[in-house]
């Protein structure tokens, strides 16, 4: 009953050489998505017509002899990316009927490479969170067990076989946590490798486009397609520094994997076990292992949230009911702002807007915002020193298993879920969440982090030990209650 999972690059090759057609695959895929979506609530919108159109276009191009690296690969896109002509809810009920007039750079690139966009995936309130529990459209369920939240709907889509690639955003860790909760791979690349143009970001400093897939090779192919200079996003000038020639193979003997498990009592024994098991795998694969200690790590989650709140309060200001967001009937301008923002935002978006407004105010700017930026700089410096001792760093990604449906934690506890992921965002480093094992029959991953632009190295190293790591079942397992 478990369908065999093909990798995206294999599938693209099959379509490329005529063994399969995008159209047949898309028709089957859409059927499957509609079925699974009914139980998992993965998508906010399934783009049936557009997907079939694109599949036909891809088949035609293949027939015309064109080479497409991702021909016919079914793609899910998180609903905070804009796609021309498709609805983009951005995680707000008020945007249910908003249709974007333009496409995100990353979406454009993937479609050009032959991907078939199946649908837009569910997300937390204005993209704020890593559970989908705060989504105005209800939570997305975890295919491993429907008692649990997906964490990331895109990761659930990959895990349950609704698509092979998922384009996602990662601010404080949504993509990496979701990948861990669903037992797949998720890369948050170095900021600047993938254009953010068209991603509705609540944090300009931290929100990045990333990719989730069932294996590191697929992520590599997608990164190759997505990475590059885009004049619409100034941060992508970084891509001009990328070496033209890429190393084909790596020599494990020359690579040192740093391992960090020095966070004392805060680290769960489960994480400690996973780290040591995975470290052992690296050792068996001839990689060098080195223990690393981090000093500032504990200070960084707060710094991350201060900056993220501040930016959220500003980035969300445009949803004021004048042009975007729910236009409420009001007697005057202030009332209009108040009413429409109340309708547009859920609890979490409101909370972060208010926190951010307070933190940027003149009494708190210096002691909080400026201090947070200082911690960021110091932590970046510390991480730069770490990467003189090792090439990549292995550390936990989650603090807990995927959240249980219907048992939403308090907001402070939810922020704590980003304990291992947000600091990496703060430092501006690339990180891959990779499956490492299961606890209580639920998947748990680890994070492989590198210095800026180490994305390709991370993917290659992960591929070196991926055998036996990728464990995602395609079938959906109902929760015990259902």
């Amino acid at each position, binding site marked *: 009953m478990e369908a065999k999972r093909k990798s995206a690059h294999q599938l693209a090759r099959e379509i490329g050489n005529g063994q399969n057609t995008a159209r047949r695959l898309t028709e089957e895929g859409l059927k499957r998505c509609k079925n699974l979506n009914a139980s998992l609530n993965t998508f906010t919108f399934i783009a049936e017509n557009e997907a079939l159109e694109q599949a036909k276009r891809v088949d035609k191009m293949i027939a015309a002899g064109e080479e497409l690296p991702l021909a016919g690969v079914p793609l899910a896109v998180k609903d905070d990316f804009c796609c021309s002509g498709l609805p983009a809810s951005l995680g707000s009920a008020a945007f249910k009927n908003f249709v974007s007039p*333009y496409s995100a750079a990353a979406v454009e690139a993937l479609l050009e490479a032959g991907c078939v966009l199946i649908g837009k995936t569910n997300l937390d309130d204005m993209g704020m969170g890593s559970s989908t529990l705060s989504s105005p459209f209800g939570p997305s369920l975890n295919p491993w067990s429907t008692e649990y939240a997906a964490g990331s709907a895109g990761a659930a889509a990959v895990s349950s076989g609704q698509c092979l690639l998922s384009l996602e955003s990662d601010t404080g860790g949504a993509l990496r946590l979701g990948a861990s909760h669903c037992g797949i791979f998720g890369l948050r690349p170095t900021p600047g490798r993938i254009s953010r143009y068209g991603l509705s970001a609540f944090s300009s*400093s931290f929100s990045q486009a990333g990719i989730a897939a069932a294996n590191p090779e697929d992520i590599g192919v997608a990164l190759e397609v997505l990475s590059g200079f885009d004049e619409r996003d100034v941060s992508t000038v970084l891509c001009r520094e990328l070496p033209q020639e890429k190393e084909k193979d790596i020599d494990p003997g020359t690579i040192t994997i740093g391992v960090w498990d020095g966070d004392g009592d805060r680290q769960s024994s489960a994480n400690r076990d996973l780290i040591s098991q995975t470290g052992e795998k690296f050792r068996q694969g001839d990689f060098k292992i080195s223990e690393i200690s981090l000093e500032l790590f504990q200070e960084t989650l707060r710094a991350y949230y201060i900056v993220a709140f501040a930016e959220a309060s500003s980035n969300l200001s445009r949803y004021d009911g004048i042009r975007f967001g729910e236009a409420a009937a009001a007697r005057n301008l202030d009332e209009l702002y108040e009413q429409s923002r109340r309708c547009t935002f859920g609890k979490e978006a409101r909370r972060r807007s208010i926190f951010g407004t307070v933190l940027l105010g003149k009494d708190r700017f210096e002691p909080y915002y400026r201090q947070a930026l200082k911690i960021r700089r110091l932590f970046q410096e510390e991480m730069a020193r770490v990467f003189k001792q090792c090439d990549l760093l292995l550390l936990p990604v989650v603090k807990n298993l995927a959240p249980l449906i219907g048992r939403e934690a308090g907001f402070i506890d939810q922020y704590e879920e980003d304990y291992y992921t947000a600091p990496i965002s703060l430092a501006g480093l690339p990180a891959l969440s990779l499956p490492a094992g299961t606890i209580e029959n639920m998947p748990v991953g680890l994070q492989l982090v590198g210095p800026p632009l180490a994305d390709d190295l991370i993917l290659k190293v992960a591929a070196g030990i991926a055998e036996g790591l990728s464990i995602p079942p395609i079938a959906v397992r109902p929760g015990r209650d259902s």
Partner: protein
Amino acid sequence: MDYEVVIGLEVHVELKTESKLFCSCPNCFVPEPNVNTCPVCLGFPGTLPRLNREAVKLALTASLALNCRIALRSWFDRKNYFYPDIPKGYQISQFYEPIGSRGSLTIEDDLGRPKVIRIGRVHMEEDAGKLIHSPTGDASLVDYNRAGVPLVEIVTEPDLRTPGDARRYLEKLKIILQYAGVSDCKMEEGSLRCDANISLRPSGSETLGSKTELKNMNSFKAVEKSLEHEIKRQRAILKSGKEVISQTLRWEEESQKTIVMRGKLQAHDYRCFADCDLAPIELTAEEVEEARAALPEMAEARAERFVHDYKLPDYDALMLTSSRGLADYFESCLEFYNNPKNVSNWIMGELSARLNSAGIEIESCSFGPEHMAELLRMIDENLISGKIAKDVLEKAFYSGKMPRRIVEEDGLLQISDQSELEGIIEKVIKENPDSVGNYRRGKTKAIGFLVGQVMKETRGKANPKLVNELLVKKIGFK
């Protein structure tokens, strides 16, 4: 008690770029609303700003022209506030580190003495859209054509002391920025906007009095008038022992009065912080020096050169350099026709009169330097008289035709043929025996009247010098 007036000006100037500050929408005025817009300047979700380097260049030029120190590293901040004319809920501006600071501009005070006005900062920012309120008051509309247009804001220190100072500062600023090619600086069209801060304090006092902010002046004259009005108002309040309320006032052109626009001026907390969607603006010392070297010759230097190189009187040089367009026009004429004083006379006389009555700028005038040169050459060659030339200029001014063509088409060539003129002269002598008699009795002035009669007969086409000669020969003492 006498009071000292303290004035500071905040001037917003639209930069003359092809496109907007953060997107490729054209930077030009169009009457239809919301035409020059795109997802970026409308603040669509997911869009990112992209800095227009041309705007940075112009801001750098403006800063250098105003003797500012240049920040080699500056950046954009977000100024957060809610208002419907800003699409993103924040304005992108330079708050913490302006591109230019600590500059100066020298004006003449009321007594004609030079006076240095310090310029605190020159910073870049994006313009807002325009709100249009329905006359019935039940709706407001927003036009985002102007949203994202690049501006520099130029802020003086409180160094101005009289409304005249303020006007002269603005006039000088306009000339400098026009010369530098930074902006059109047309206050009537909104490409230069000015807010004034004004307070009074007892003479000799060092502390500033409480100030008011004046807005909505749409000409230099209005700035001067509104300040005069505000000085009177504040002086009356202070004399009566009351305190001036710190507030924003709006100048009403129709009634020539200020009205309260916003209550108490409170320091609004804009929660400014660096905009991470944009990279910092990095300039090298070489780039700055290049821009400094490329600064165009400013008005004063050019006037001096005109006096020295073209032997023009000071007055002519001053008038011709009062705008860059006029000075450029003058020098272009000289490329075709090398008689500086003659060109100067005609620009300052006839051409200026035409420009004024048509209400257009020299840049958009269809009577170009080639037209002027051809016209003046025809006078020199005795092909037309000065009087006819004025008519030709007017015709060419409106039609854009070359002067020679107008002269030919309208048969205005000067009559310098002696035989043709002799018949007309005979006729005039016959018809005006009294004047002839007067002349012969020694009233030499009578000859002027007779010349005039000949000119009338020929509809101005006769060569007046030749007519004069012929008349004297005919009726002179034998």
